[in-house]
């Protein structure tokens, strides 16, 4: 049951993009087409789940065990950067079809703050191992949901006549604001 709450909370209630504001760069940059939004979402979910597993292990068995929690940020960023590289090489060798879809998005993920945020929040909330994994996965699904909805809206937006100053990032942010308003409706769902 607690896993379900962690999952729902990460996907809907505390949606990473719409209530924590992390992963905004890809959210604005890669949300022009539904296809690429889906690919980006899958890539992020994949990396987030693995990151939450690896950083949990590092945090508990290396940093806390050796009494070096102040190295948290340095350790996480190195782990995430090398993990993304590794995942990229692994997929390229084993699943060439998936690599073709995700290819260009994987390197972008290193600088995606949502990934680091997953690692930081699960350490901060002191989640147990399985909870962390569920949380990482849920956060990724939440990101995918938000970016795909946004891409759907933006495909329609392409056809409308937007006043010049609002074109580009401005109208995207306002749309995201309205979307965030809609997602606030989920806030009573869990207390976590």
């Amino acid at each position, binding site marked *: 049951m607690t896993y379900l709450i962690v999952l729902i909370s990460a996907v809907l209630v505390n949606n990473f993009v719409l209530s924590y504001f992390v992963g905004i760069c890809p959210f604005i940059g890669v949300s022009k087409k539904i296809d690429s939004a889906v690919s980006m979402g899958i890539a992020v979910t994949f990396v987030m789940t693995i990151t939450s597993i690896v950083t949990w292990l590092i945090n508990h068995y290396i940093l806390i065990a050796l009494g070096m929690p102040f190295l948290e*940020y340095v350790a*996480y960023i*190195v782990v995430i950067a090398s993990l993304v590289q590794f995942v990229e090489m692994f997929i390229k060798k084993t699943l060439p079809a998936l690599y073709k879809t995700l290819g260009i998005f994987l390197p972008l993920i290193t600088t995606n703050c949502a990934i680091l945020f997953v690692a930081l929040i699960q350490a901060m909330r002191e989640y147990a191992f399985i909870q962390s994994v569920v949380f990482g996965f849920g956060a990724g699904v939440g990101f995918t949901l938000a970016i795909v909805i946004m891409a759907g809206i933006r495909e329609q937006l392409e056809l409308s006549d937007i006043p010049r100053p609002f*074109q*580009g990032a*401005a109208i995207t942010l306002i749309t995201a604001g309205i979307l965030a308003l809609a997602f606030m409706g989920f806030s009573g769902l869990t207390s976590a």
Partner: protein
Amino acid sequence: MAQKSIVSEFAKGLVRENPVFVQVLGMCPTLAVTTSVANGMGMGLATSFVLIFSTLIASLVKRIVPGEVRIPVYAVVIATFVTIADLFMKAYLPPLSQALGPYVPLIVVNCIIMGRVEAYATRNAPGLSLIDALGMGAGFTLSLMILGAVRGALGSGSLFGLSFTPVLVMILPPGAFLTLGILMAVFNAVKDRNSPVMVKA
């Protein structure tokens, strides 16, 4: 490189290449912590600190670091300065540290910092990089403070002593997106009027 004047290198970060309104970089902290002027300023200054020292170090070591591993190297440099800023704030400014929460460590992945290091510091002398970082930091801090001022004033329902019904949504997540979107449009409109060249945000 010699003809770049110090003043213009500094000033470009404020308006022409403003990191928030023009380059649309560093969106996470911009949206997340600007519920008040004080929080915006705290985040702006912390980011500027990291930006200034990281670009300085990056431009000093750029000849030693091999090209293939430069990104991880810079990431470690940035993360180190973020840790320093974070520990400093926890020790001396606990309320601010509380308010900014996990967004302080997120400075590590703030695209403004990596962007300036990669696009400017690795190509220019340490002195110029420092000026560039100061300008970008000032532009970022200023943008966050403007955003914090608008959201804080509307959200708390008082502006220059005038009080009105607080628009609570402005300090909640949707308000962040709406305020930044509208301010960005205003910024574009002003820029369009001042220069006939078409500018795309």
